[in-house]
Every structure is written in C-alpha cells, then in structure tokens.
C-alpha cells in the first residue's frame, strides 16, 4: 500500500510518501512561501538527491498539483501513475469536540471540520484546502484526517474545563483541547513497544519539546491531561511563546503599554518565551552558547524553561498517582542533553534518576535513566507523518476489505 501524507499550513505544504509494507519513506519534501513571491518546492528523492523546483506556486491546489506532478514525473518521480496511490493521510489541526480518533474524510466529516474553523481560524482552512485540492485532482481517492486534538479527547471535564462561566463553554466551546496529539500518541506507544510493556497498563508523561512545546499525561493508553489548552500558547514556556501567565498581567501590560489585542497577541506569541527572557534567540543552541559565555539572562531563560517542564511532570505524577515512563521528544527533547539533564535533575525522590553519562550526547532512541531508576526515562524521536500513515492504512484497509 502506498500512502501520501500531507500537512498543509497557511503558506507551506509538507509531504511524505510511504510504502506501508516496510514503513519506508520513498519520497518527501515541502513547499515554502506558498502564494508569495519566491515560492519553491524542495523534494528529496529516494536516492537522497535534493531537487529544488522554483516558480510561482499560487495556492494549495496548484501546490498539490505540482507535488503529484513531481511524484509521477519520469525524471524525479517514483510513481508510474497516480493510480498507484492507495490513500492520502492529512494532518488536521483542530477536530474540536467532534473527533476523538482519525476518520475517513467524507462530506459529512468535512462539514464538521469546516465548523471547527471558528476555533482554529489559522489552521483548519489550509488543511481543508489541501483535502479539497486532492479530491479534485484524484477524484474518488480515499482520504483520512488525523487530528492534532483527537488524542486528548479522553481528558475528563475536571481537567479540560477552565474556571470561567459555564455558559462560555456552552456558547463558544471554550475548554482545553491540547495539541501535538499525534506526536504524544506515537511516542508513548513506541516507548511501550521498545520496552515490551503493555500500553494499556502504563502511566506515561510525554514531553514534546520543540518550537512549540507541550507535556501530556497518558494513563492506561489514554491522555488524561496536557499542558496546551484552548490555543497552543498555554502551558510550558516556549521559543517565543510565554506559556502559563496570570491573565491579570495581560490586562496590565495592555494598559501600561497602550497596546491593542493584535499587538498583545504578537507580544505573547512572538516576543515572549526563551527569546523574550534571554534577549538572545528562540533557538536553544544559541541561548546555551550565550549562557556558556556568561550571559545571565540566557542562563535564567534556560532555568525557567527546565523548571516549567519539571513542574508539569510533578503535577502529572500527582494526577496519575504514579509514573512508569518519562519520554522526551521533539527537536529539543531529542537533541538538547543539557535541557534533559535540567528537566530530570533532583527528581530522585519520585524515582526518576537520569544516567548523566548516558544522557550526554545521546541522539537516538532509547533509555537514558539509571538501571535502578524506578521510572524509565526515554528519548523517542517523534514521527507524526508515520503515525498519520499508519492511521490511514488502518482505516483504508478496513474499507477495502
């Protein structure tokens, strides 16, 4: 079975083509600056050769058309014809309260995804454009939607409700949804697979630390809490996002700085976080470099970052009444050993003991806790695309039977 995974953003489209028998990626790439001047498509062939296609890519439909054109081209492609494609798997950011798992995209489903635009105005429209484009270009192709929010739909009301008037939840569906669901689901399952333990019996905390960052508590195979909320700004301090913040501060800053909603939005999403505190960069490596050169604010930003993650770990251990596995993933979780060390330090009381030697320079998949650590600390590189492909395969196989 051959499955194409698409991730359509507002000005980008990423894609990966999988052959499911061996779970291999046979081609991948992405379009950047979609609809803007200087748009291009970067394609990586099966042999590793990188090809950059330059030219105007006006919208999602044309972008998708070029992707299919390249995949079927004699020169750089790997498909003889589009008939070889069995299905398309789409990343869809927001499924609202309607979707708790991946689904076949029918007209009814798309109508609901369209309804969710209200709470994800930036993300759902481009997702929908990609789905519609595919439908037009390969009529009748099976398409599956994999939602970022679906995994967290098992969270109970006591954890997803905010302390605001209940009518606002009824009126606007304001509640915690959580994001990175596909990633948290993949790494938690993968960790159990690697350890050879039953996914349905484990208490796991998964820390996805990348550009955006969130922590999820997964008990007996179900997400029971996560740090991102109604929008992805809640929770951990991130590269440029502030994370948890007293709402009183928002009002106070807006008043003192005489700014409106737009500027406030930019302030908390783009000027804050690691960048805002350190004044150096949102890139962990640059901030660590600055710290090594004696920059105190860089050191403070890193301390704050680690401390926040640690606080969430502590609270989720309380929420789950214990912990078996602690996972670190995402660009920072997979590569920054100093962050991992900072996050896991002084948690021996809770049975979390990092093997500091093993952690140093660890860049692969595996355990980094000491042999006698009660909790297994693991690094599991995330692979959202594979997860989307697997979901798509499962749903499509059932239909084809």
């Amino acid at each position, binding site marked *: 079975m051959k499955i194409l995974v698409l991730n359509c953003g507002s000005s980008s489209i990423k894609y990966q083509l999988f052959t499911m028998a061996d779970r291999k990626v046979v081609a991948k790439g992405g379009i950047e600056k979609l609809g*803007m001047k200087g748009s291009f498509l970067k394609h990586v062939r099966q042999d590793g050769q990188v090809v950059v296609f330059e030219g105007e890519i006006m919208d999602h439909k044309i972008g998708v058309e070029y992707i299919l054109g390249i995949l079927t*081209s004699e020169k750089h492609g790997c498909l003889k014809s589009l008939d070889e494609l069995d299905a398309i798997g789409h990343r869809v950011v927001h499924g609202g309260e309607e979707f708790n798992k991946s689904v076949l995209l029918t007209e009814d489903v798309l109508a609901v995804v369209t309804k969710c635009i209200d709470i994800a105005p930036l993300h759902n429209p481009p997702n929908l454009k990609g789905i519609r484009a595919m439908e037009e270009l390969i009529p009748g192709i099976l398409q599956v939607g994999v939602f970022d929010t679906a995994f967290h739909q098992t969270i109970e009301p006591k954890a997803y409700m905010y302390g605001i008037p209940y009518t606002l939840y009824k009126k606007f569906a304001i509640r915690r949804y959580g994001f990175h669901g596909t990633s948290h689901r993949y790494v938690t399952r993968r960790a159990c697979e690697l350890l050879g333990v039953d996914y349905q019996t484990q208490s796991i905390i998964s820390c996805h630390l990348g550009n955006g960052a969130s922590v999820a508590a997964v008990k007996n195979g179900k997400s029971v809490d996560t740090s991102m909320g109604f929008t992805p700004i809640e929770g951990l301090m991130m590269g440029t996002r502030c994370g948890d913040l007293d709402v009183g501060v928002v009002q106070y800053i807006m008043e003192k700085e005489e700014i409106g909603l737009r500027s406030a939005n930019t*302030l908390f999403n783009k000027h804050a976080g690691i960048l805002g505190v350190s004044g150096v960069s949102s890139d962990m490596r640059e901030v660590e470099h600055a710290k090594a050169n004696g920059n105190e604010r860089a050191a403070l930003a890193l301390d704050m970052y680690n401390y926040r993650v640690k606080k969430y770990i502590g609270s989720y251990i309380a929420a789950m009444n214990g912990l078996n596995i602690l996972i670190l993933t995402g660009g920072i979780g997979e590569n920054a050993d100093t962050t991992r060390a900072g996050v896991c330090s002084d948690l021996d009381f809770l049975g979390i003991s990092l093997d500091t030697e093993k952690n140093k320079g660890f860049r692969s998949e595996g355990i980094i806790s000491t042999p006698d650590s009660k909790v297994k600390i693991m690094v599991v590189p995330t692979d959202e695309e594979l997860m989307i492909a697997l979901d798509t395969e499962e749903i499509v196989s059932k239909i084809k039977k």
Partner: protein
Amino acid sequence: MPSEVIYEPIEEFGLSKKNVSRTLFSKIGIIGCGLVGQNIARVASFYGIEVVFIEVNEDKIREAYKNIEKVLDERIEHWGITGGEKRAILSRIKGTLDYQDLKGCDFVIEAIRAVDRGGKIKERREIFQRIEDVVEPDCIIATHSTTIVITELSSDLKYRDRCVSIHFFVNHQEARLVEVVRSLYTTDESFQKVCKFVNLINRKIISVQESAGLVSVRIFVVLLNEACEILMEGISNIEDIDQTMKIGFGMRLGPFEVADKMGLDKIVRWMDNIYNEFGDIRYKPNPYLRKLVRAKHLGMEVNEGFYKYDENGKRIFQNNQKC
C-alpha cells in the same frame, strides 16, 4: 552518492501544464513616498508584497527609508512586530528615481505629496501617463486622493478602465479601512482586482461613488468646522470639546486631536477643494483654522497645532486651552 542540489523550473512539472499563472499583486508601485506612500509601502510589504517607490531625488528616497524604519522600530517597541519581520519588510521595499522600475507591477498608486501637487491636476495626469507607458494594460493605476475626481484624471489614458481612486487612513495603525472610488470608466473586473488587493493587505473596503471628500473627509471637515465654531464662540475649550466627543460618543480621538495628527494645512486644502466643488458654506475652512495655518501651527509634525507637543510628540498639557 547524491550530488549537489538540482534546480528545476516548476512549471514543467504540473499535472496539466496549463496552470502557470502569476501571483496577483506580487509587486506594486508607489509614486511619491511621503507619509501616505510610506504607509502603503509598509503595509503592503508587511503582507509579503514587493514594493517599488519612485521619488524625485536620492535625498527623498533616503528620507522615506528612514521614516519607514522609524515607524517599524516604534512598532517593535510596542510589541507589534519582531526584529525579523522588520528586516523582511524593509528588504521588500525598493526606492528608485526611474519609472522603468515599475515594470512588472500589478498595481501602481500615485501618492505624491499634496504640497508638490500645488492642487493642480496637470502634474498628476502626466504621472498617470508615465505610469501607463511602462506597465502592462491590465495593471491597476490608482490615485491616492479624496477630493480629486478619478474620471478626470484617467480620461487621457489609453486603458482608462483600470483606474480607481483609493484613500487609506494613515492616522493610526488600527484603521484597517480603505475607501475605493470607481470612475465612470472603471470595469467590474478592475474593481474586483482592487478588492482583492485590499483583502490581501487585510483592510476593509468601503466602495464609494465618485464625489469630492468621499465619506470620511466630508463628514470630518464639517465636524472640525463646527468644533472650531464652538471654540470661537467661547462655549467650551479645546480639551473639553475633544473629551465630549471621545467619552460621549466613543471616538478614539477628538476632532482637534485628529486634526493635529493629520496636519492642519492638509485639512484646509481638503476643505478648499470640497468647498469649490459644492459651494456649500459648511465646507469653508473656519477662520480659526486658517489662523493656525497662517501661523504655521500645522499640527503634530511641527509640535504645535490646536495643542502643543514636546519633541517626542507627547502632548504638553495646558489648562483650559482656549483660542
């Protein structure tokens, strides 16, 4: 082993090979880069559009860049944009002396300073002509004006169906509104293109029939004239009149504050033009307004208008300002 990166033109890889079209409004031109021109350049570039502006000499080009940068720095200081966004915005704006650089533009806006126009329509007709000589027949040509009629301005052109008049609100950042005027010649197709452009830069479009003063200026000048009248009759003072409108009617700024921001000379010119067009006494500049302009109290730009300002543009509060 894979060699270096291979580059290919994407057009050859479409499924149908027929969908090769250009992004609409990937590049726009601006003639004259005063306050209005700078504002349009900054906004368009913010939304990813390349901007070419034409000025009369190198000094003016430098001045325009400097001012655009200054506003962007202020935006950063007030958390509106990031340093990276500022660099990207500036990199898309190019100043030039040569009309030939307008080649490839999808939209050209004439926005020369009112003082350089001298109120004469002849210069602007010439500019329209020079734009038409360089751009494609489907390029929209617009004038930034509130009191000059676009039909008159475009009547000499070969393709006059693509001309419109537009009016941006440059007073404050959040005024996301553009008035667009069709001439007698403007086709629906051209008008739709302008709407697309306005949508692209995230502004609301107000379609207005051709009439001097449009909606905004015509209402505002009468409001200001009446405010001056009340002031002259000694009924109230500047501060209180502004407060009344702000608090009582929920306006962001009072009439005198707006006037100071816009520039009193500009407002008097508007009034003169509208008065000449309609002959209605309501539009005739109030004597107090004329007095301030003669005294060169032109508003915030010179630190004195209805109010006084320090060198940072902050208002100096005085008690009971009367005329």
